[in-house]
């Protein structure tokens, strides 16, 4: 076993010299029975004489993170480096601490994802999970160095290789971008239960209103009537459901207005509706737009909504308000002797009923466009940034990296 005071230890120039690119280790992922620190230790299994920058970087990371775990000892003749023909290295280490007081002699394979995967026996599920995690790290600029081991039995009999996980290697200093393991993330509760409830109720109501509304605009149910079948009260029911859902929608809208003025949650209060309060906000808006146009790689980090997002949501609120207004202007036509409905229907006299119906239909399509963009951007952001944005609309919490500094919240601890 190698310890810090290894007799061969001699001070030498710092790692990274001699033309190697400076390397950073992002973290270790375990997929077998070992802990992530043990996977990191296996990845560091190299002879003392190794000049490989990856060996150095992993050893350094292990030292920094877990000084209590020794770097596995590999004899000078017990290693065969990787090559373009065989893209993994083979090393033998002795008496590796497997946990629970158990030690084992192991052959360690370390190298490129597919090359190592070809050597191990795993289930398709394990492979899928590993590949997905590796791909995600890849996207963020980290290369996964796969680690697999096989026990060495008596008489140097090498057993079957087992997949243990991978460590991520980044080129250059990549501070702040480390995706890391779960311990690098902090969960922050952002969305109140009322907002989440309103959101999903809105989804249900807008879906119902869209389906019924489309059928009122264009009754597609046509063949049955020609067969002389009973159609019952089909349009009557469609309109009934449409009106019922519309009243519910207005109630949801009213509760949102009330909460904008009564809630103590700053994410709900009315000032959030207009995100451009300072010059910096406008600059951030520009950066977000450039980020989405692939001009800028980085965008300012927000815990809640970024300015572009908030403008879109505020715009949607306005659009929905117009939709309710035009809808009820049309609904009120049924009772023009009543002063209330006559007042609500006033826009019909400005534009004419058909034009109000046209607005009402076009806004439905605009809301559909919003939904398409909204779902896409939510899935995209959650996939790329891994902040759990989609589940946050269910459980209220988003995940941020420790040390992250959102524009709209204190540093995440």
């Amino acid at each position, binding site marked *: 076993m190698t310890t810090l005071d290894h007799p061969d230890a001699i001070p030498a120039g710092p790692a990274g010299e001699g033309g190697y690119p400076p390397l950073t280790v992002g973290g270790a992922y375990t997929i077998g029975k070992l802990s992530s620190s043990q996977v990191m230790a296996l990845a560091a299994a190299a002879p003392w004489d190794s000049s490989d920058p990856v060996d150095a970087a992993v050893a350094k990371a292990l030292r920094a993170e877990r000084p209590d775990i020794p770097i596995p000892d590999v004899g000078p003749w017990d290693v065969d480096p990787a090559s373009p023909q065989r893209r993994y290295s083979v090393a033998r280490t002795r008496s590796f601490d497997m946990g629970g007081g158990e030690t084992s002699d192991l052959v360690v394979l370390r190298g490129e994802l597919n090359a190592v995967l070809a050597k191990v026996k795993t289930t398709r599920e394990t492979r899928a999970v590993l590949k997905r995690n590796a791909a995600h790290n890849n996207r963020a600029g980290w*290369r996964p160095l796969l680690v697999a081991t096989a026990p060495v039995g008596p008489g140097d009999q090498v057993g079957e290789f087992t997949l243990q996980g991978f460590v991520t290697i980044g080129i250059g200093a990549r501070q702040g971008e480390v995706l890391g393991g779960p311990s690098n993330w902090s969960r922050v509760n952002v969305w109140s239960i009322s907002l989440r409830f309103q959101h999903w109720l809105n989804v249900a109501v807008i879906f119902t209103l869209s389906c019924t509304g489309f059928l009122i605009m264009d009754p597609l149910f046509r063949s049955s009537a020609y067969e002389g079948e009973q159609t019952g009260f089909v349009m009557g029911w469609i309109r009934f459901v449409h009106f019922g859902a519309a009243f519910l929608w207005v109630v949801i809208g009213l509760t949102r207005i009330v909460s904008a003025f009564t809630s103590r949650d700053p994410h709900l209060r009315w000032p959030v509706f207009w995100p451009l309060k300072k010059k910096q906000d406008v600059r951030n808006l520009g950066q977000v737009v450039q980020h989405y146009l692939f001009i800028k790689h980085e965008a300012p980090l927000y815990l809640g909504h970024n300015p572009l997002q908030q403008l879109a949501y505020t715009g949607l609120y306005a659009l929905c308000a117009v939709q309710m207004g035009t809808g009820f202007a049309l609904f009120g036509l049924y009772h023009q002797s009543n002063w209330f409905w006559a007042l609500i229907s006033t826009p019909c006299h400005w534009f004419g009923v058909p034009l109000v119906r046209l607005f009402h239909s076009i806004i439905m399509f605009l809301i559909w466009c919003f939904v398409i963009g909204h779902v896409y951007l939510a899935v995209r952001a959650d996939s790329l940034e891994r902040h759990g944005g989609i589940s946050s609309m269910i459980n209220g919490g988003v995940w941020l990296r420790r040390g992250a500094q959102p524009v709209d919240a204190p540093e995440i601890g």
Partner: protein
Amino acid sequence: MSYRMDGWQEPTLGENLARAGVSRRDFLAFCGALTAIFATGAVSGKANAAEVEALAAELSAVTKPNVVWLQLQECTGCMESVLRSGGTTVEEVVLNLLSVNYNELVMAAAGEAANTALDETNKEPHILVVNGSVPRADGGIYCTIGGKTAETVLKEAAEHATVILAVGACAVWGSVQASKPNPTGAVGVDQIIKNKTVINVSGCPPIGEVITAAVAYLLTHDDPPKLDAEGRPLFAFDQRIHDSCPKRPHFDAGQYVRTFDDEGARNGWCLYEMGCKGPSTFSPCPIFQWNLHTSWPIGAGHPCIGCTEKDFYDRFTPFYHVLPNVEGFGIEASAEKLGWGLVGVTAAGVVAHAGVTALRNATARKAHHEDEPLAAFGDAGAEPVEVYSGPQSKPVKAVVAQAAAEAAEAAEAAEAASTAEGPTGPEGKE
């Protein structure tokens, strides 16, 4: 049934009607219909007997009113609607008895005599009924009567009018001639006469019964009737055609005519899909119908075109489509096409954006590998690693040694700090 029509001979309307041969029974039936119309919102046709008696008494006691009935830029269809209703009606007799002073279409006088009659009636308080729009473009030359423009004729007649009734779509807002591009600059009566209430009896043409009802209302009531936002009397225009359409059950059942020659059309189903504007149009057509209840457009299998609504030529077209078209793209597109187009463009945008995102990720990944080949991954082009390179290059060893040195240094510094703190140091440490 035919009545004798020899003008206003007796002092009161009731006596004149009796002279014309209108029986008490017919007159009461007529008053009953009027009472039903005036009862806002009630369309059962069954009016309170007392109300009918009261209206009959009031109406029959009316003495000869002065009525000026102008016909400006119009097709006389409104008057035809009343006169050619399929037989002589009490309504017609009432209208004939009233519209005697001046009316271009039916008056006996002509030329100088007619103009004199108009000028003299204009000087006294009178009821002013207007058919037709007022063309204002090019100094109003598109409609002149007796050398005066329609605008002048209207203004003179309105000066001493006690009440002004605009009858027909032309008088209400200009109708066909006021639709885009409106070459004659036609406008309705209430766009010229702003200082008096104008009661708009809308329609192209309005139903004869509604015209009579409006006149009868003015003769028997001191105040003008309640009006809607477009100046139409609520007693006739408080409900949409759709609300009392006899084909409404087919609408609710989802039974629609899809083409004018299909099974649905033969079955008399709802014309909604043929662009019927009944749901957008306020008018009592389904109740009164036309030509003595003979028929009406929807009853004849044609969708309503919304002629009682303002700007119906511009706003309710295309007549045979459910929604108006959307202009402004060089072509006219239907709302549904435009909507699906918007959705399609958005979806395409999302797909394109997702594609670029994926491409970016892929290139970022690749570039990463190609830029910095690493020997540990067996990358081609990586600098070969000397695993046993001797004492000159021992990075692993070096790292460990450096970390150990740093740790020792830190421990030393901590110890130095604790001794510098003096005798309280060790206790503080605990």
